[in-house]
């Protein structure tokens, strides 16, 4: 198995669950306690992609939540091989923020594989993003998932999909 290391960045509005998504993916843990991320937090996780004969080590940059990237935040995204956009399914406003952040990134860097996680799927009563809205995202992102960091639903699937997209692109290049 070939080992490939890739940098991916997790971006999104405040309190959409970016750190929880990473924590669930890396350590398979979840905490109800909210701790805001300052600057950036780095974690790593290895994923085996047997069909591609590759072990992908993801260096996950969990960038502090923001509705607009400052110079410092945008520099964190430099050289990222892929992006994980996270939105809060109970707050439709976070979709707009995600779109705004995506534009900022694409203005600064080349387009890279990206997945969209509509998070907090477990809060069904408070869910406010419609199926149409989610479908409309398909053009902007390589894949869209309704996830829950609390239950772990589709978190790993989404990250493996992103890893596969990155490796596919690397091999294609």
């Amino acid at each position, binding site marked *: 198995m*070939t*080992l*490939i*290391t*890739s*940098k991916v960045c997790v971006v999104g509005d405040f309190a959409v669950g970016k750190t929880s998504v990473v924590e669930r993916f890396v350590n398979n843990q979840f905490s109800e306690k909210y701790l805001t991320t300052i*600057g*950036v937090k*780095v*974690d*790593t996780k290895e994923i085996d992609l047997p069909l591609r004969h590759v072990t992908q*080590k993801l*260096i996950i*940059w969990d960038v502090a939540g923001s509705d607009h990237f*400052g*110079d*410092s935040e945008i*520099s*964190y995204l*430099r*050289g*990222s*091989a892929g992006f994980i956009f996270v939105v809060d399914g109970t707050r439709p406003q976070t979709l707009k923020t995600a779109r705004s952040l995506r534009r900022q990134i694409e203005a600064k860097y080349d387009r890279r594989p990206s997945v969209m996680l509509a998070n907090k799927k477990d809060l069904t009563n408070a869910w406010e993003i419609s199926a149409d809205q989610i479908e409309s995202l398909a053009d902007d992102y390589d894949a869209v998932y309704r996830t829950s960091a609390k239950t772990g639903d589709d978190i790993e699937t989404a990250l493996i999909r992103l890893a596969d997209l990155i490796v596919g692109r*690397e091999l294609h290049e």
Partner: protein
Amino acid sequence: MNDLDKLKELLFGAEKQALESITRRVEHREVRTADVADILPEAIHRSHKKSAELVESLRPPVGECMQQEFHHDPQTYSDALYPVIGPAIRKSIMHALRNFSQQINEAVEQSLTFRGLRWRIQASRAGVPLGEFLLQKNLLYRVEQAYLISRENGLLVGHAHHEAAKIKDSDAVSAMFTAIQDFVQESFSPDRTGRLESADMGEFTLWAVHGPHALLVCVIRGVPPRALRSELSAILERIHFRYGDSIRSYSGDTSTVPDVASELDKCLQFEARQQDDQVKRGVPTPLLVLLLLAGAALVYFVATRWLQSQELARLMTELEQTAGVYVADGYRDDGKIVLSGMRDPLAPTIAEIAAAAGVPSDAVEARLRPFQSLEPEIVIQRVRKLFGESDKIEIELVGSRAIVSGPSTIELQKRVRDSLPLIAGVDAIEYRLPAVDRVARIRELLGPPSTIAVTAVPDGVALMGSAPLSWIESAVTRTANAELGFYVDLNALVAADPGTLQDRLAEFSGVAFRFSSGTTFAEGAESLLNDYAVRLRSLIDETGNAGSDIRITLTGSTDSSGDPAVNATLAKQRAAAAAGILTTVGIDPASIVYAENISDDDDESHADPDRRRVTIELELMDSATTR
């Protein structure tokens, strides 16, 4: 040649010749080769002086050439390298040994001081081996880790670290360092020209060396010299030269940067602290103390072993010289001397033998079985025991015959004779009594009459004088049966002449035997009377054979104290008591007459021991007259 050509010749003639000359040089391979050969040494020299790129460029083809040549013709190269390899190996071994010795010296020195103890505790708390801790303490600096980080994406291109360095997830460290770098740059250098180049954290210093495509971050323990930064920069330059394109487009595939770790290994430099010359010159004091202690321990060990062997030898010699003890084996075990063998119960105890040899008795463990020794000293002791261990008895052993000197009674000799079969080592006992004792012994055995003189002669006793024939015959028989152990000469005895009977009677007559009180004889008197009775009996027998008879008058006496009537009765009783003894030996009671002799002293209170007696008077009579 037309006009145009002429014009060309005029205008460019010289250039044309030069061009043709250049063209010839370029087209002719040999000329070109000669030109290159001409400038090649200088070109190589200049290029090498200018940068390290030439070396890097030559390394792959030269390496490949050498590899092929070594493979193709190993013998030639091994012959060529032979003079080099031997000294190189020796030098390497010497170097390694010197380092090892120095490390041991330093470790011993440090571990035997209070400071060393403190460091030991600190090392334990830090969770590193003492050796590593001491090394860290003695280092001026050491580059513990080197990270080669892509400037583009913060991915780790390569990582090298010292074996003892504690490594976290190096990819995460690399990413986080990049983030911090970006953060610092954005926060404190708005024009983005500033760069984070060093950071201090406790005993570590972080140095970042920036290249066009990669960042070399070194984690350094201690205080690095400024020159180190230049060396690190050179290494980074070399890496850029070798892997420039790969690093620029690095996307996490390590196979695109082969052997980058070996380049990074060159960053792991260190420098030891200079030791104080004063301390270095002499032998370290703790080591000296250690050596002295070891020497003292060795001397003590050798001396103890020598003393112990001497002790064992002394004891074995003493045991060998001691009668009644046989030791088959003697050895040391667990600090004790263990003896196995046999010991006669009459021999000295092991404690006594050990004391004589100057060995503490509690240091000896004897495993001895009892046995009966036939050694003369022990046999003599065994015989002496039969005589009640008397000091007056002297025993000598000749073969299996014990020769006993000293006083002994007939009963004792009989008892010894009965026990003889039970005494190992002795078949017979011979008595050798002193002259005085020999005479006494004969007197006791034979009770010779007063006409017989008993005298000691060398090794025996001689009897001289006259005696009745029957007595002489009896004496011969009794001496033969008595096992006296000495020679008795009876040859000088002559049979008594009857004409002298009157004289002998006179000797026996008038003898007195005292009483202490009542009818109790004074001390020894009864024994004397018994003796007297035996001899008197012999005389009477003799007299009878000669046709004569003897009248015995027993006169009982008392002192004047007490009632005269009682005294008269007591006098009779005393005479009767003496008569009782005489008749016991076979003297005819009819030949005895009684008389009293009461003191006529008027003083009744006068006690006179001399008057408490029986007097015996003898008178020779014709038989017919008497009857």
